[in-house]
Structures are given as C-alpha cells and as structure tokens.
C-alpha cells in the first residue's frame, strides 16, 4: 500500500519544493518584485518544514500506536518496547533516519531563511541563491524519501507483532548519538550553501563581514554537534560488547572523522581570514570539502560499499549519492576557478613562525590526516583495481598516523599560545616572558623521565603522553594568566567573578575546548597499554587479575516481562580492599536467539577494569574476559570540558 497520509505529505512537499524552485528562478530573472522576497522566503521555508513535521509526527504516531501494518514500524519496533525506544526507533532504519534528517534540513532552512535576522540583512541576490540551493537540497531528500527510502509502506495484512528493535540499539546511545550526528551533518550545509550562493551570484562574500560571522557560527555548531555525536558514539561502543574499544577505525567511524577534521580546519582558517584577510581559498575549500565529506559519510553508512565482500553498490541509495558527490565537487571547483579573482588578497602570510603560520600548518596537517584516513578507508576499493581480492588496512596503520600527526598537531597547539598573531617571535623572548611555565616544564620533564626510568618502559606512548601533559600545563597556565592579568586590570577592579568571566568568555571557552581535546587525547593513549585476560571462574571463587582480586558472588536469573536476564555479580578488590560490586549480564530478548551482553566496568583515574560475561560452562561455572585499559576516564572527562567550554562560548554576554 503506497497511498497514505505520510506519502501524501511527502508528495505535497515534493510538488511545493518544485514550485518554489521555479518561483525562485523567476525571482532571479526579475519577474517578481525584489521587496517581496523576504515574505516569500519565510513562507517557502515554512511550508516544507511544516509538511515534514506533520509527516514525522505521523510516523511517530505509528510507532507509539504499535501500528505494525506499517512496514517500517514492523521492522524496528514491537509492542513491548519502552516508549523512549519506540520513539528512538524512528531513526533506527534507513528510511526513518532520512525522514528525520529531512526534518532537521527543513527546520534549519526555516531558521536560516525565515527567522535569522543576520541573514535577512544580507544582499538580496545572495539570499535568493541561498534559498534556491536550500530548496534543491530539500527536493533531493523528498525524492529519496519517496522512491528508494520510503518510510510509509504498509502491509496489506496486519502482522500481530513487530519484529523488534535490534537489542544493540536499545541503549541510551541510540537516543542521542544519531540525532546529534545528523544535526552536525545538516548544520555543515549552511556554510557551504552561503559560499556557493556567493560564488554563483557573483557577490564577493569575502568583502562582507557579516557573512563570515554567520559562516563561522554555523561551522562551529556543525563542529560541536559532530563532536558530541562522535564522543557519544564512542561511549556507546565502549559499553556494548563485541565492540571492545571506543574507536576501532571502522569505515563508518572513519567517515564521521573526515568531515570533523575538515570542519576543524575550516574553523581555524576562518579565524585568520576574519583577523587578517588571509586563507580565503583554504577556508573555502575546507568548508566545501567538509560538506561533501558529510555526504560521503552518509553514503558509507547507507551503502554496502566497504564492508561486505561482494556487494558493490547493490543498494539503490548508492548511485544518487555518488553522482551527487561527483557532480557537486566538479561544479564547486569550476565555480571557484571562474571566480578566482575573489580569492586574491593584499594581505600576505608574512612569517611561518607566527600564530597565522602555525594555523596554516595545522590546517595542512589536518588535510593530510584526513587524506591518510580516506586512503586507508578506501584501500579495499583501490587495491581491487590492481590485484585479485581486497586488501583491508588494519588499525596499526591508523594508530601510527594518528600518533604522528596528532603529536604534530598537539605540539603546534602548545606553541601557538606563545606566538604573536602575525609577527615572528623569538624563542628566547618567549622563554623570558613565560618563565613560570618553563620552570614547570623543567620540573615535569624531570619527574616524568625519572618515573620513566623506574618503570623501565621505553615507548612512544610515554613520549607522546609527556607531550600532551606539557601542552595541558601550558593551556592551564594561559588560562590562569588570562585571569590574573585581567584581574589586576583596573577595568575589572570590583567587578564580580560572573561579570569577569562573561566579558572574557570567548578566550576562556576556547582555551577550555582545546584543553578538553588534549585531555581526551591523553586518555586515548591508554589504549596502547591495554591488557586482556581470559579466565574461568566458579561461584565463590576468587581469582587474581594483576593487582585486582575478583570474586564471583552469584549468578542470578531474573525475568523482566518476557525477557530473561542472567546476571553475574562480582566483588572487585584492589590489593585486597573491596572496591566495588560489578556485574555483567546476558539479557535474552524474546524473539532473539542470542543474548545481549552488558559489561561491568570499574573505573578510576588510573585505569578501567572492564569485565565481560562470556559463556556459561557448567552449573556454577562461567568464563569471563577482563580488559584493563589505562586512562579511559580522562576521555570522558575531557569531553565534559569540551561541552562546558562550548556552553560558556554560546552563553549570551549580557546574562
């Protein structure tokens, strides 16, 4: 059954966006009065948003009502599912997640074209083209939703029960990770559309200051949503069995890292552009690149290009996406080339050993990083051209590249805060000005290397870790310096702390975000020292794992509705001190043969003790796997600092 309210709404959306595109073109050819544009744009961005919203609510209602006649609801839900998972099952599949994405697209379009005051003040022609490209994108998504990925198919007969949501997706991660990632991807479209609209309409946006404040804000939002999306995804993976770690350089993960790297580069390029009118071409390429990489990521996630051996683009989604990427990149490059005079500048980068110079090097490193990850991810396809069979690049390659380029990036970040923006700075000058920091550096290196000698461990990880620690100290030093300098400033005498922080919030929050990232990376270094143990254990038995003792207290069976849960409860001791009770369980969902395993984790600042309930071997006998990974807590701690920094950044100044 194809004809229903949902498809009717999608079809109306499709027709309307077609009409709007035609009207937009008529505006371009001056068939309508220019001063009607604002009213028109508000209306044409509201209608698709409204229609998509109703269609989404309709699908949501199908989920809540357990309407299993709907093929999509049947595939991803069942009547026993808690309400919040019924809601999150909305984006569990291809079609539903695409509808959700369209909802975000139209919402952003309405915000940009209908509400945003900043954009409404822009040049008429620029607005016209921004509207046109938005409508084209909305049209493209309506086409996808109606033909290859339709969420509104219905069975002729009503199945009594849905087939249920994959147990792995029944996790809080499912509620937050996909929407945030989609938000990030959708937001990355706005800077792209503004730049392309500028190039098409022959308006040199580099000369309009407001444009780049809009571009910067949307790039920052996209970056931030993608950052949280990726981190929550990693957290989700960590607490789900079968995944083991938080990051495994899987093609889908790599595909989300690529736009993140480009967005990071774009943000840093925009800084130098706004301050010194340099890096125009570079920032433009990074913004355009990050948008196409979000499309690439979508393509990797929704096609079987890279995982299954002999399934090449067998899915209908693959072809339109690939065509879209190729056509888009070629059109963008032609546009850039034909408007090349916009990219010239009177200002030059004068010295490489300045902040601007380091930002350029940072961005080049980010591009190289992204290229290396892209090469590794696509290697199975590339190798296919030259040899029989596929070659997959394993984690070793990525880890080495991440360590080398990550090290370079971190070192440059550490140095950046000591450099002047555009003038060369002498090292001796820096050292004299920042004596306190360098004394700290000396002390840290001394203690660190002495400890190192005692550990008798020489490895790249420890050297890398030293670097991150020095940069963390440097960032904290700058944070404190910032506070002290301005605290002593007369302007701030008698001013409350709240007022002070608000007036300095941009600088403080940006140092915080960088600090959070470096702490997160410090946490990642622990992965290189992960230890893994396999053990067999009986009820009442106490086993030794490194300096921990693990006692299996009991194995209990609990029924939860139609599901059964088998829980193994442990006492965990560290050097004979009882630290925690941890448990790992198997949950048998009705309708699924295999249990869903949840892991037990004991976490402290030094390391994580990660316990997985393996197999049931006999009556009171199970086998378990233990992973001890240093510094995992720092990863999550670092991410909270990033979030806090971002919250501070978007806080209104006159609170």
């Amino acid at each position, binding site marked *: 059954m194809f004809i229903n309210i949902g498809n009717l709404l999608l079809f109306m959306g499709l027709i309307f966006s077609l009409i709007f595109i035609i009207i937009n073109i008529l505006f371009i050819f001056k068939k309508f009065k220019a001063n009607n544009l604002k009213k028109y744009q508000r209306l044409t961005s509201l209608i698709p948003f409204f229609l998509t919203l109703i269609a989404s609510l309709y699908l949501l209602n199908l989920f809540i009502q357990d309407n299993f006649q709907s093929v999509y609801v049947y595939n991803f839900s069942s009547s026993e599912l808690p309400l919040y998972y019924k809601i999150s099952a909305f984006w569990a*599949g291809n079609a539903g997640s695409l509808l959700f994405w369209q909802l975000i697209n139209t919402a952003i379009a309405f915000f940009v074209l209908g509400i945003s005051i900043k954009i409404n003040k822009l040049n008429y022609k620029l607005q016209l083209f921004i509207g046109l490209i938005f409508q084209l994108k909305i049209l493209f998504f309506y086409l996808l939703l109606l033909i290859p990925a339709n969420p509104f198919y219905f069975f002729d007969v009503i199945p009594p029960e849905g087939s249920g949501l994959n147990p792995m997706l029944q996790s809080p991660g499912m509620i937050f990770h996909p929407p945030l990632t989609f938000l990030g991807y959708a937001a990355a479209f706005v800077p792209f559309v503004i730049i392309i609209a500028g190039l098409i309409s022959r308006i040199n946006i580099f000369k309009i200051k407001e444009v780049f404040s809009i571009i910067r804000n949307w790039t920052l939002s996209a970056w931030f949503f993608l950052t949280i999306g990726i981190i929550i995804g990693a957290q989700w993976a960590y607490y789900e*069995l079968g995944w083991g770690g938080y990051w495994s350089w899987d093609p*889908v993960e790599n595909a989300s890292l690529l736009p993140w790297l480009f967005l990071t580069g774009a943000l840093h390029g925009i800084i130098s552009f706004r301050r010194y009118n340099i890096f125009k071409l570079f920032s433009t390429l990074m913004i355009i690149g990050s948008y196409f990489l979000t499309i690439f990521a979508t393509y990797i*996630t929704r096609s079987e290009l890279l*995982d299954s051996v002999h399934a090449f683009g067998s899915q209908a989604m693959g072809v339109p996406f690939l065509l879209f990427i190729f056509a888009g990149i070629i059109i963008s490059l032609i546009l850039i080339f034909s408007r090349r005079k916009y990219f010239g500048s009177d200002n030059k980068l004068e*010295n*490489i050993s300045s902040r601007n110079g380091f930002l350029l*090097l940072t961005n080049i490193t980010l591009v190289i990083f992204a290229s290396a990850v892209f090469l590794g991810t696509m290697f199975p396809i590339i190798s296919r051209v030259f040899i029989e069979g596929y070659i997959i690049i394993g984690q070793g390659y990525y880890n080495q590249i991440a360590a080398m380029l990550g090290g370079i990036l971190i070192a440059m970040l550490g140095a950046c805060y000591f450099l002047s923006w555009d003038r060369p700075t002498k090292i001796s000058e820096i050292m004299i000005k920042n004596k306190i920091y360098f004394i700290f550096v000396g002390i840290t290196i001394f203690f660190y290397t002495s400890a190192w000698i005692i550990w008798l461990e020489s490895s790249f990880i420890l050297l890398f870790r030293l670097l991150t620690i020095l940069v963390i100290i440097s960032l904290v030093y700058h944070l404190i310096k910032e506070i002290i300098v301005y605290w002593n400033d007369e302007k701030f005498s008698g001013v409350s702390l709240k007022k002070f922080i608000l007036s300095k919030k941009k600088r403080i929050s940006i140092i915080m975000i960088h600090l959070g990232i470096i702490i997160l990376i410090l946490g990642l270094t622990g992965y290189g020292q992960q230890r893994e143990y396999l053990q067999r254990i009986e009820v009442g038995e106490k086993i030794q794992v490194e300096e921990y003792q693990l006692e299996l207290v009991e194995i209990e069976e609990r029924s939860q509705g139609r599901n059964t849960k088998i829980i193994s409860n442990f006492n965990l001791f560290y050097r004979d001190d009882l630290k925690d009770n941890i448990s790992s369980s198997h949950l048998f969902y009705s309708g699924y043969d*295999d249990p869903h395993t949840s892991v037990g984790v004991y976490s402290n600042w030094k390391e994580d003790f990660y316990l997985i309930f393996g197999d049931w071997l006999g009556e009171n006998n199970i086998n378990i796997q233990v992973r001890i990974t240093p510094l995992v807590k720092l990863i999550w701690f670092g991410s909270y600092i990033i979030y806090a920094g971002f919250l501070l950044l978007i806080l209104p100044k006159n609170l």
Partner: protein
Amino acid sequence: MMNFSMKKKIILILVILIVGLSYILVTNFRDSATYYITVEEFIDLSPDETRQIRLAGILDPDSINYNEFEGIYTFQVKDKDFNYKIDCIFNGIIPSNLASQEEVLLEGKMQENFFKVNQIMFQCPSRYEESL
C-alpha cells in the same frame, strides 16, 4: 600570495610530512594489510599461506564447541551455498550475539588445517540493514 622563502619553508615542511607519512604507510603495510576473502576463495589458498586474512562466511551455530582444557573454541564457517566449510579455532570470548549474525568476519591466519582466528567481527548496527 607569499614571499619566496616562505613558500620554500612550507614546501619543505610538506615534503617532510609526506615522506614521513609514506614511510609509515610502507612499513605498516605488511603488518596492517589484511586480505579480505570469502570461504570459496579460502579453500583455494595454499596451506602455507602466511598472510593475515579476513574471512567472510556464515557461522554454523551448532558447530560451536568449547574445549575446557585448552580454553579454546572451535567452530565452522560455511559459504552461502553450504558447499564448503572451514574449521576455525579461537582463543577468546565469543561475542554473545554472534550466532544470529548471518555473516561473520573473522580475522586470523592459516595454521595447519585450521583457520586460527584472532578477532571476530560483524557488521555494526549503525549500518542500516534493510535491503532496498
């Protein structure tokens, strides 16, 4: 856009980065390159194959066996038409939702008549499973 010595400096840095990176690429290639093959292709390999292999096949859930003394699992993977089967040994915890996965990915090496598995993987749930 920039003066000449600046360009030189940047190019020098770029060259160093790219050379370093290519070095990593080449040295890591043997260690991290894995040959991705199916069960049918595995059967054709010679027994003294030393490359790291990722094998895609269908796991026979009834064949999973745990050897308590050695602490290892043995199981079989088959091809789509169930014409061939390969004996595998694995020292580790079998992911609990493995048996219901249609296709599994096994990473490991050939060892005498067995395929010695180091890692068991399956498609991640973020990949949308419906076929369109």
